[in-house]
C-alpha cells in the first residue's frame, strides 16, 4: 500500500501476528488448513518507531495493545469493481428488448 518502510510513533499502521502455530491448531480441520499457522492482522496507532518486519506494538481503535510484525504503514484498500465480464454485458440490452416485445404483444 503505502511506499514508506518506516513508521513513527502515532502513525496508523498494520501488524501481523500468529494466533496459532500449525502444531497448535484445532483437531479435525481439513489438512490444507491444518498445515498453515492461523495468522491475524490488525490496524492501530504505532506505539514505537519501526521498519517493515520489525516487532512493534499498536493501540487499536478499541484501545487494545497488540504486538506484531509491522506489515503496512498507512494501510489502505485496493479492491475494485473489476472489468465487466463479457457474459454479463449484454444481459441488460437483451432483457429490455424482451420486456418491450412482451408488452407490445400484450397491447400494453
Amino acid at each position, binding site marked *: 500500500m503505502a511506499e514508506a518502510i518506516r513508521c513513527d510513533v502515532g502513525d496508523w499502521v498494520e501488524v501481523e501476528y500468529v494466533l496459532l502455530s500449525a502444531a497448535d491448531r484445532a483437531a479435525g480441520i481439513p489438512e490444507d*488448513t491444518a498445515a498453515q499457522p492461523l495468522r491475524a*492482522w490488525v490496524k492501530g496507532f504505532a506505539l514505537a518507531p519501526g521498519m517493515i518486519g520489525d516487532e512493534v506494538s499498536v493501540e487499536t*481503535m*478499541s484501545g487494545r495493545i497488540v504486538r506484531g510484525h509491522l506489515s503496512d504503514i498507512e494501510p489502505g484498500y485496493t479492491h475494485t469493481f473489476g472489468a465487466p*465480464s463479457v*457474459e454479463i454485458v449484454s*444481459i441488460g440490452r437483451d432483457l429490455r428488448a424482451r420486456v418491450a416485445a412482451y408488452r407490445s404483444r400484450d397491447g400494453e
Partner: protein
Amino acid sequence: MTGRYEQVMARKGEIMKRALGMDYAQFERSPIAFDYEAMMFSHGYTLEQIRSIQRSAGVGLTPLLELRNITDLVRSYAEPGRGARIFVKDEAANMAGSFKDRRASMSIHVAMQNGFAGVIAATSGNYGAAVASQAARAGLKCIICQETFDSRHIGQPEIVEKSRICEAFGAEVVQMTVGPELFFHMLELLEETGYLSASLYSPFGVSGIESLGAELAEEMIALTGAPPTHVVVTHAGGGNTTGTARGLERVGAYDTVVVSASVDLSGLHMASDTDFNRKSFTTGHTGFGVPFATWPDRADVPRNAARSLRYMDRYLTVTQGEVFYVTEALSKLEGLERGPSGNTAMAAALSLARELPSDATVVVQETEYTGAGKHHWSQLAFARAQGIEVRAGDPAESVPGKSIVIPERPEQIRAHDVDLIRLRRSYIRNALNHAPEGYSTTPEDVIFLAEDTNTTPSAVEEVIAELRAV
C-alpha cells in the same frame, strides 16, 4: 501439554456466560429438549418495543418495491396464466446497507442496557458492518473478527470490502486466515475486554428480524389487500428465515409460504484453505444453510435462536451464475444495483414466480448494498483470477469451485428443491448424537424435535426408530 487453543476452549462456558448477558441453562429441559419460546421471549421486548428501539436506531421502514419489469420478464416465458407479481423489500436502504441492521440494533440496545463498554462479533458478512455502525451511534467500542484471507494472504474481495466498511465505522477489525478457530480468538478477546458477545444467533438479535416480516406483510396488505402468498428468504445461518417467519406470524400472515433460498456450493469445504477463494459467495450459500438447518446449535451460543427447519416450507438452491445474471438484470431492468449475496432469494424468486399463478405475490425480503469487492463484476473477475472457468451456457452444468456458468436466457434459471424430509432426518440424527451415550428419548424430547423440525411426533418417532435400527 495442553496448547493455548485447548486452554481457551476449556474456559468457553464461563467466558460465554458472562459475555452473552444471559444464562441459557434456565431453558434446558433435557439433553435434547429446551424451551425455545421461553428463550425467545426472555428479553421481554414486544414487537412494538422492538420497532420503537429500531426506529430510534434509524433502522427499518425500508421501501417495498414492486418489480414490474422483472415480473413481465418472467411472464414473457411463463406458461399462460402463470408468472406471479414480484416485490422486493429494499433492505439495502438501512444505514449499514442490509437487514443485519435490525439484528445489530437489538444487540447494541442490550449492550447499552447491561452496561457493556463494547461489543464483539465474529462475522465476515454484513452483520459486522451493521454492528460497527450501530456501535458508533451508541458510542460503544466494537471489535469484529473476520475470516478474510487464505494462507497466501489473498482476500476474498467481498470480505475485504466488509473489513473496510467496519473500519469506516470505527471498529477494530481482526482479519484472520481460514479456520474455525476464529471462535477461539473471539473467546480470547471477550475475556480480555469484557465486552458483550453480539452473536448473530442471540434471541434478541433474531427477534430484531421479526420487524422485517411484520413490515412486509403490513405493506403488502396496504398495497394489494392481502399478505404475500410467498416470501423468499436468502438462507445461511437461519436467522433471516426464522425472524422473518416469526414476524409474519406476529401480524397474522399464517398462510404465507416461507421459501428459503441458498446458493449451491456443494462440494466445497468451508474450513478449507484452498476452497476459501474458490467461491464467489461468502454467505447465503449451502455451506452454511444446510449445516445450520440440520444442527443449529453449532453456533457461538449454547442454544441458537435461529432454527430454520421450524419455519421453512420449501428450501430452494440456485447456482452462482444464476444469481450473477439476476443481479445484473435487477440493475438494468429495475434501476436497483444491489449486492449478489442478497440477490440469492431474487434468483430463486424468478424461478418460483414462473411456476405460480399470475395472481400470486412473491416478496423477496431483502437486498444488500454493493460496491467495490462485493459487486458481481468484481466477483467474476476474482473468480477468473483464481482459475475458475467463467462462461455463458446452461447454469445446470456449473460445478462449484470449478466453473461459473452465466445463463444465456432467463428461461435457464431453475431453482432446485432441497428435500426437507432428508434435512429433518439429518437434524434428528444430530440431536441424538449430541445426547450422552445411552440416553433414551422421552415423550417431551419427541414433541420438541417435532416442533424443531416442523413435523409430527409420529414422524419423529419413525425416524428415531429407523436411526436406531441402523
